[in-house]
């Protein structure tokens, strides 16, 4: 019989992995949508940071975390409009403009924080939800049914986005534009409008990811995301541009982080190897990427600006 303390630790580790995976999942889902339409956004982390600050400041002023989430989404929409204008109308090189968005987000979020807040002040975080019966189930209850609302929103978006991409005209248009924009255009699909919408939705999810992070932690500080946005981009490749794959990638990354943390807590990983172990999630992601990259093809038109007739 498995020791009850061991069960408690396993449950706690899996719950921790799910929490850690959530911001990655939200940002990756948004990035996957953009990439399926042919647009790479390396500025995810910057959008997350501004979304995080917007949400944090809103909650600080209103004590309403739900309003904070909405502001995070709104900030993402604005950043999406901005990024779409740069990449679709100005036809800027996507890699460079994405890095520009990242640097803008990093600097602007810190500037706004210093200007309007200064010293970190705690905000009202999300409380775990309590589902009748389910939350009280032994083992499974704590593992799956005692998370905050943002966890369920993130994982709930996976089938929604999968359905949209596979079974709706809009999803078909996105996939077609990502593979062959000329053909889609010749069939009357507006490449610019469709890509613009995908960018805006993608950025709004990045803003939501930042908001979720700040509110879940109940705090904001400089560079809060700690480059999570870049990991989220890698997870899109890991997940082969599918919502389900992205979810699996996010969960693997989050769970490896949680397992490493638990192993350190219990001394399974010696302190001398502590820094090395901290790299484990990144190393596993890179190894998986190497395997996945060989098996799946990225959208053919990814990073290629579209100009009719060119």
């Amino acid at each position, binding site marked *: 019989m498995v020791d009850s303390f061991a069960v408690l630790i396993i449950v*706690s580790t899996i719950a921790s992995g799910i929490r850690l995976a959530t911001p990655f999942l939200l940002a990756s889902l948004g990035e996957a949508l953009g990439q399926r339409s042919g647009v790479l956004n390396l500025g995810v982390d910057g959008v997350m940071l501004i979304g995080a600050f917007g949400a944090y400041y809103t909650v600080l002023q209103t004590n309403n975390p739900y309003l904070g989430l909405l502001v995070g989404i709104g900030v993402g929409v604005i950043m999406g409009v901005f990024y779409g204008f740069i990449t679709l109308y100005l036809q800027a090189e996507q890699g460079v403009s994405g890095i520009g968005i990242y640097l803008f987000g990093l600097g602007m979020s*810190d500037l706004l924080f210093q200007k309007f807040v200064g*010293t*970190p002040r705690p905000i009202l975080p999300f409380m775990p939800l309590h589902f009748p019966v389910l939350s009280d189930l032994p083992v499974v209850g704590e593992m799956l049914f005692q998370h905050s609302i943002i966890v369920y929103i993130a994982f709930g978006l996976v089938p929604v986005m999968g359905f949209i991409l596979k079974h709706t005209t809009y999803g078909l248009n996105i996939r077609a534009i990502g593979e062959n924009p000329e053909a889609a255009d010749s069939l009357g699909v507006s490449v610019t409008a469709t890509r613009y919408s995908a960018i805006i939705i993608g950025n709004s999810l990045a803003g939501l990811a930042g908001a979720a992070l700040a509110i879940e*932690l109940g705090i904001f500080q400089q560079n809060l995301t*700690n480059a999570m946005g870049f990991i989220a981009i890698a997870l899109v490749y890991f997940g082969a541009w599918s919502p389900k794959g992205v979810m699996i990638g996010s969960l693997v990354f989050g769970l490896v982080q949680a397992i490493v943390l638990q192993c350190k807590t219990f001394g399974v990983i010696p*302190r001398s190897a502590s820094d090395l*172990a901290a790299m484990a999630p990144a190393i596993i992601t890179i190894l998986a990427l190497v395997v996945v990259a060989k098996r799946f093809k990225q959208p053919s038109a990814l990073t290629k600006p579209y100009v009719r007739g060119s």
Partner: protein
Amino acid sequence: MRKLRLCLSALLVAAMVIAPATLMAAGKALRVAIIAPSAQNDLAFTQSIVDGIKAIQKEREIELAITDGTFIVEDAAAAIRDYAKKGFDLVIAHGSQYGGSLKEIAPDFPETAFAWGTSADTFGLANVSSYEAASDEGGYVMGVMAAAMSKKGGVGVIGPIEVGDAKLYVNGFVNGAKAQNPKIRAKVNYIGSFSDVALAAEAAKAHMAAGADVLTGTAQMVVGAIGAARAKRVPWFGTQANQTSLAPEIVVASQVYKWEVVLKQIIADMDKGVKGGKKYGINLANEGIVIEFNDGYKLDPAVKELGMKTIAGIKDGSIKTGNATP
């Protein structure tokens, strides 16, 4: 007329020679630059040095420039070089990770005084001073009190990377906890990052799930861990700066760095023409480290008394922190 011109010229030359020295003696603004890894109001490591120099500003005219948020060492190196080029009198590289950069840059600017920490290494350079905090002393005091407070017999520590004052603090805390209760489960989790707030929060949750009912942590990312502890009402011991404002209901006490103690010594030595080559330190005895209790936390008077006795013991040398990895 010629004599008058000669007299005026002599006066002018004398004024030019004497004026700089007079201005220096009268307290000419000292130009000091700080380069630090996180925000200057992080309630932790960076804020401690900024508070230190601001304390000296009350007594002496100082032109202060701060470049904070330089998590990336290359950015910090560029800032260090830039301040030296601009002729700042004292350039402070506040982070153990900046040592390699400073070792390369300092020889190019022999007229500039550099200080860095936390470290005891001056690289044998005449214009580099180092400073460190005996954070093991405050850590030991906190550890003793934490062990006395723990009902489950478990305390948890969240650290960044096992270097500098973080390592000293963590070792001191664990040694103090074990000195108070040899059976205590004192678990340490170095998360491998100074800036990953989310991971620090999860490390705190992992400690609590493993039975820790008193927590502590060091470096900028602990704001996440404090939030996690606050949600479960688990007592927290802070370090580097007073962290009470982050969670007034759970912060028991904070070890606060008063870097002005070493900064005053460095500046006094600079006034004497010594630009570096010396090691400085703060500790409980020289009051560069102080333990600030949170008056809003209902601490058992016996535990506080235990803490005060431990402070006194470390100051008079009767208690040793056993500064080694437990």
